[in-house]
């Protein structure tokens, strides 16, 4: 009886008789390049005669017949790692641990596929291949798993991309340099520079560890220095020097701890009263937990599925009571219904958020302005997942509570004072979007489609005892809303929308206008 673990070799020529699916599995298992002819190499190097080739083919066929008939029991005896000069063995073995638990050949093949994927995901190898070798002859029914890796020759890589940063609420261009695997633990070090549409800039250094002290999820840390310019909208500039640790990062859960020194300044000296009171230095020590469940089929053009995100943040985690204390909760729910014709889909979304200070005298204390909610901007509500942020037709920070700025006697300025948008402690938005393909094939091929939408949103202040003045009828009365239609152009860097928006309802000082409106969103 042939050793069941013998050479599932994908390099057999004329594989007409081999079953299609098993051949695919084997090819996939061995990664993108370098199919290993391990078994054949271990022979004494005799040129393969035609008879040998036929014999090995017959053996493979019998093996596959057995595999199709019933599970073939097998036990993994040893995992051998080859090709790693820098990378520590235990880092690689931790990723392929799943292979040891396989009890049948079928399971082993599947587990090898998963292990290959895990190793590729570490992003430190140029190629990965896994082959199954026969175990020691005295132990029948065993196999050795041989992992051959080729480490990246050039450890430095650079990339440029566009992102939508949740804090800055705008799209940004980011360039980063990555230095991989310096210490052999699969560590990736990166330095990045990001520049946003709203004159915000951030420079940061980060570190990524796939395994930290045996914990199952990767560990990330980041030091950053950021500068956000909100002078035009709220008369302040925000500078922050921060350190953040990603403690848990799995498919559904994310836990991040951030500590940052934030400084609000007003070089223009035009700020309104509330903003003036908030200028100065603050220390933030906050824990943020995000639960994300995204079953939509696409984040840039969802046509089916639903998603739910909940972000909870608690600040003030330090023995010092002078550290900024606040609570923040955001919730976002999306649902996409396919309509069947022209790839049309109806997208619904509801999102809300609330923030409040805690600690002694919390009812009368003002909430921290950068932690408040601001609605409006050049983002599309369909793509910006994670809390209330954008409404079509309203400019950046263009709606909500506002205050008069400082009065300055100037012959050239008009009599009307400009206003500062100070943000709200509670915000809620909702939208409905119907997207459809155009009948022309030219548009369909390029993904250009049209959409018709409606959205509504509102904000209110709660801190400084203002919650006493807030009533549900008043909130409903002052809801802002807009409708419109437009064309969506997906490009390689971002999703662009060219919309015509009509503002149905807005309040006195909102910055919103009916007309053409362009939005940029990244996934």
């Amino acid at each position, binding site marked *: 009886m042939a050793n069941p673990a013998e050479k599932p070799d994908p390099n057999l020529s004329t594989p007409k008789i081999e079953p299609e699916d098993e051949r695919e599995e084997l090819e996939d298992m061995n990664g993108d390049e370098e199919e290993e002819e391990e078994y054949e190499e271990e022979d004494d190097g005799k040129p393969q005669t035609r008879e040998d080739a036929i014999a090995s083919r017959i053996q493979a066929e019998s093996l596959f017949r057995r595999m199709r008939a019933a599970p073939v029991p097998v036990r993994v005896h040893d995992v051998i790692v080859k090709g790693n000069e820098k990378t520590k063995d235990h880092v690689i073995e931790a990723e392929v641990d799943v292979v040891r638990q396989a009890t049948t050949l079928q399971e082993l093949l599947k587990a090898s596929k998963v292990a290959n994927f895990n190793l590729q995901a570490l992003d430190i190898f140029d190629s990965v291949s896994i082959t199954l070798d026969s175990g020691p002859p005295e132990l029948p029914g065993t196999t050795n798993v041989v992992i051959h890796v080729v480490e990246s020759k050039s450890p430095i890589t650079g990339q440029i991309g566009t992102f939508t940063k949740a804090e800055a609420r705008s799209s940004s261009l980011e360039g980063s340099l990555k230095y991989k695997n310096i210490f052999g633990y699969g560590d990736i070090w990166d330095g990045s520079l990001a520049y946003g549409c709203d004159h915000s800039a951030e420079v940061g250094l980060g570190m990524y560890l796939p395994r930290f002290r045996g914990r199952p999820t990767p560990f990330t840390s980041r030091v950053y220095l950021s500068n956000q310019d909100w002078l035009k909208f709220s008369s302040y500039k925000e500078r922050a020097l921060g350190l953040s640790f990603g403690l848990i990062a799995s498919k559904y859960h994310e836990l991040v701890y951030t500590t940052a020194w934030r400084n609000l300044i007003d070089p223009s000296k035009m700020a309104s009263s509330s903003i003036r*009171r908030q200028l100065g*230095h603050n220390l933030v020590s906050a824990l943020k937990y995000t639960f994300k469940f995204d079953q939509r089929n696409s984040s840039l053009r969802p*046509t089916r599925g639903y998603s739910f995100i909940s972000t909870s943040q608690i600040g003030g985690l330090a023995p010092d009571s002078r550290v900024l204390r606040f609570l923040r909760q955001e919730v976002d729910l999306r649902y996409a219904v396919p309509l069947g014709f022209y790839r049309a889909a109806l997208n619904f979304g509801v999102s809300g958020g609330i923030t409040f200070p805690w600690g002694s005298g919390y009812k009368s204390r003002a909430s921290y302005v950068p932690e408040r909610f601001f609605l409006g901007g050049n983002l599309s509500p369909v793509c910006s997942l994670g809390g209330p942020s954008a409404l079509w037709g309203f400019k950046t920070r263009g709606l909500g509570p506002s205050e008069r700025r400082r009065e300055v*006697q100037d*012959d050239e300025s008009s009599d009307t004072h400009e206003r500062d948008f100070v943000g709200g402690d509670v915000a809620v938005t909702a939208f409905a979007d119907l997207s459809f393909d155009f009948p022309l094939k030219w548009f369909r091929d390029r993904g250009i489609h049209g959409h018709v939408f409606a959205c509504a949103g509102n904000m209110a202040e709660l801190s400084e005892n203002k919650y006493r003045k807030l009533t549900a009828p008043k909130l409903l009365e002052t809801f802002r809303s807009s409708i419109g239609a437009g064309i969506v152009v997906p490009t390689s860097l971002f999703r662009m929308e060219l919309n015509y928006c009509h503002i149905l309802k807005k309040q006195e000082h909102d910055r919103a206008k009916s007309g053409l409106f362009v939005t940029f969103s990244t996934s």
Partner: protein
Amino acid sequence: MDLVTGQEVLDEKRSEDDHNISSWFTSTKNLSEKPLAKPSSSTKRPASSSMNLLEDLFFFFFLTRALITHTNAIMEGDQETEVYTLVARKPSFDLPTACPNCLPAYIYLKLAQLPFELAFNSTFPDSDELPYFENGTYVAYNNEDGGVIEKLKKDGIVNLDVPLQTLPEYLSLKALIVSWLGEALTYEIWVGTEGISTSKIYYSDLPWVISKALFYKQTYMAKNRLGITKETAEQREKQIYKRASEAYEALSTRLGEQKFLFEDRPSSLDAFLLSHILFIIQALPETSALRCKLLEHSNLVRYAEKLKAEFLEASSSSPSPPLHSFPSSFSRKGSKPKSKPKVEKTAEEKKFKKRARFFLAAQFLAVVMYLSVMGGGSSDELEYEDEDD
């Protein structure tokens, strides 16, 4: 009183006034009803007609008062705070505000007997803008136009120096107090006493990490401002203390046993000098060299104690002393942040830069769109793959 309690007081007052208005209307209603209720009770005809006139007058008076109060209540509700507010650093060392830059402004307003509220900002120790004086949308920052006091004088809000500015002594005394004594105080706080008092003055509300970093930053900036380096430290110290001693001597001689520096009227120089003396005596430790030099001049100490008792402690108990020495209508003469030709230039420049930015962005967009659209459906393929999952 800080802003929170001030707001609460206003709220209470407003609710009080609302209650009062209704009670006034009922009382006026009663007044107007009274003569009707008793038509034939009075036999004294001439007295009753004069009583009617009196009652009409009362009615008119109460109605006007009710209208005025209600209008005030509405205005206060709309504009939140039309009261004067001085925003300064927090109090400590038994001083209303412990910051040596904020105290002169506070004392100046007290000397002028202008009613104002005091609010605090305790998170910005390294700002030049504090103290600032605000009234609705009017703000006078300390780093504009020579300081808060100068700005208040210029904008016509309160000016105690009107008859004194022409005196030659005024300028020389001002230079002496503001520059020599000011420098001596800055030196003593940051270098002489090594910043012992600064934690209570500036960093009482900031976490340790930030306060330490800002302390080093502010010490460095103070040394820079005073021109103190490793080589010049000793020589500069001697010069500063010598100048301070001479200034105390001159001021002590000038003051004698007078109540104020100039005749019997308070001036801004009294505010500066009083704040300097009070700060040194109360906030600096007893080992301070500058403090010892000051205590040698007992008439300066007595001057400070007298003025403190009369203006700072007395006025804190009395609610609203009579208003005078400020015009009823403010003539805010152009507190322009920049001069005219500069404003024009920067506005044009800004416009040009904005247009240039839009042009570049449009070009970039066009290129990206062309590449993506003409490049074919690569993004489309990705979406189809997602659908298959």
